[in-house]
């Protein structure tokens, strides 16, 4: 996060001293909460592991030549035919589960990050337009937002994948459509407050264009609640993708996210090979919970009303 993207207005109501930049103040107040710090560390570790997967995974799970069917359904700690230890066991076709999880994390995180970014961009733009334009435009946009938010996200996502089909790009589109309304509603809420403030009037009387006023002046001051929403929504997107993939309507077998891995293990679970489903599930859980912990803390830190 760069320093300029943090709104100074919301984090420092008092004049900052030379050493106390808004970002430092924010960081210090964030780490005061040990649980949130732990969440942040866990999440950072998960991201690093996912990024480094090709370097640290004992096996490339997509490489058919590296996978041996003789190794299938081995319990955690068994040694593979090639000599390395499969700490988390292997799945139904003999893939090392730890490697599968590391690669699966990449896909799950990527889907979450991309859908979150696009949804945030679309939602913020639409929300700002609604707040700034007002009138009929606002009514139409907000009715659409209300309509969408009144339907449960699982159902909307299911119908969308039914219409779009399988694949990473289609899932991202579906998740964007599910999520944009949350961003739009949040941004509109804060933009409505901001646009009545004097700096907006100043920008307008300087003759700045509408676009410049909205995106350079109003938008930065609406970012604090968006950051909070973004963490919660990204965790939700990852969970939703896993759910859809588990149900067999999300990602195909060729792009095994954590949800696909869990689904693959489901059939073996009844017969006692619990690890094939349980370990990818724990990885998914740690990802979601750590993001939520960070989001919870951000909500407290970025809320100016709670400031002492």
């Amino acid at each position: 996060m760069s320093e300029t993207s943090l709104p100074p207005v919301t984090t420092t109501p008092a004049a900052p001293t030379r050493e106390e930049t808004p970002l430092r103040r924010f960081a210090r107040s964030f780490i005061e909460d040990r649980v949130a710090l732990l969440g942040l560390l866990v999440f950072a570790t998960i991201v690093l592991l996912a990024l480094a997967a090709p370097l640290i995974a004992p096996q490339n799970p997509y490489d058919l030549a590296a996978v041996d069917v003789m190794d299938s359904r081995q319990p955690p700690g068994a040694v593979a035919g090639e000599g390395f230890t499969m700490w988390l066991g292997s799945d139904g076709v003999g893939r090392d589960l730890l490697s599968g999880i590391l690669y699966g994390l990449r896909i799950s995180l990527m889907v979450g990050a991309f859908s979150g970014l696009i949804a945030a961009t679309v939602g913020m733009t639409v929300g700002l337009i609604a707040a700034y334009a007002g009138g009929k435009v606002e009514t139409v946009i907000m009715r659409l937002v209300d309509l969408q938010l009144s339907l449960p996200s699982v159902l909307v996502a299911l119908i969308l994948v039914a219409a779009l089909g399988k694949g990473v790009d289609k899932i991202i589109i579906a998740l964007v459509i599910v999520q944009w309304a949350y961003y739009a509603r949040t941004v509109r809420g804060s933009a409505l407050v901001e646009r009545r403030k004097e700096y907006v009037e100043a920008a307008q009387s300087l003759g700045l264009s509408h676009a410049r006023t909205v995106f350079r002046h109003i938008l930065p001051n609406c970012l604090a609640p968006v950051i909070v929403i973004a963490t919660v929504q990204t965790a939700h997107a990852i969970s939703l993708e896993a759910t859809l993939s588990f149900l067999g309507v999300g990602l195909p077998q060729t792009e095994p996210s954590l949800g696909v891995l869990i689904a693959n293990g489901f059939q073996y679970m009844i017969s006692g090979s619990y690890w094939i489903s349980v370990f990818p599930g724990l990885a998914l859980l740690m990802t979601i919970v750590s993001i939520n912990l960070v989001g919870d803390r951000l909500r407290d830190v970025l809320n100016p009303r709670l400031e002492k």
Partner: protein
Amino acid sequence: MAAFILRRLAQALFVIGAMLVIVFFGVNVVGDPIYMLVSPEMNQEQIAETARSLGLDRPIWEQFLIFLRNAVQGDLGRSFVHGESAIKLILSRMPATLELALVALFMAIVIGLPLGLYAGLKPESKASRAIMAISILGFSLPTFWVGLMLILAFAVGLGWLPATGRGETVSVLGIETSLLTVDGWQHVALPALNLALLKISLVIRLARAGAREAALMDYVKFARAKGLSQSRIIGVHILKNIMIPIVTVLGLEFGSLVAFSVVTETIFAWPGMGRLLLEAITRLDRPVIVAYVMVVVVLFVTINLLVDLVYSALDPRVRLTEAST
């Protein structure tokens, strides 16, 4: 009041109409379903014949007009796979889903309310913190994952409860229900708990917030000063006041329970309409998808409408602000 009801009714009908259009065109841009239905040995002529018999050879807008005309008469097409009326198919699976959702709703109240009350009345105790931690987990955990763990623990590990299917059913007034047999309850316990988990967390939070607020109110202090027992203060005075928002929210959440049952029904092989939807999606059975969505949307709109009307009857401010905007 009459104008308010009419306006709300018109809005509800508009939403249903809009969804009808969106869903029909949304679902019908998917790949050609005809190739999923014919056997590979069929020649071109036979394929064309099948397409004609299902009305798939006509232009999309014509299909839509026919669909619309039939929809008004309560006919949402025939399932490509089952050959039955789609709406009948959905409705025949509906009791199983509603049964599951109702048991889940019941569980949410029975489990969530006492826990939330306790956490609200003793906010500093260790047990309260544990309860709140559990409720945060309840929000974070994906439903399908919890379902798997429930199966692993109670069906595979302990062997207490069956993992899949619906138990023995009894017909009451023409509706099959499994809630009157022991076998039925054993089968419904795990899936209902799975479905209820999110709502249990929700009820805990609502009850906790409500109880914390109510405990400071004058009427509670007065009741205490009168010398009423603690259980009477909590059971009558506090509970009555916090039940209103909880019941409202749960009413609105009933629709989401039905929607989430798609996940739960698939895991526990529960023969409800959610599982039917998933089968329809994987087999591109368009009429069933459309019919499912319409049934759920009507259910949603009806619930929202009822909640709105009850609210405006209880609280005139809702009506007045509505009229002024």
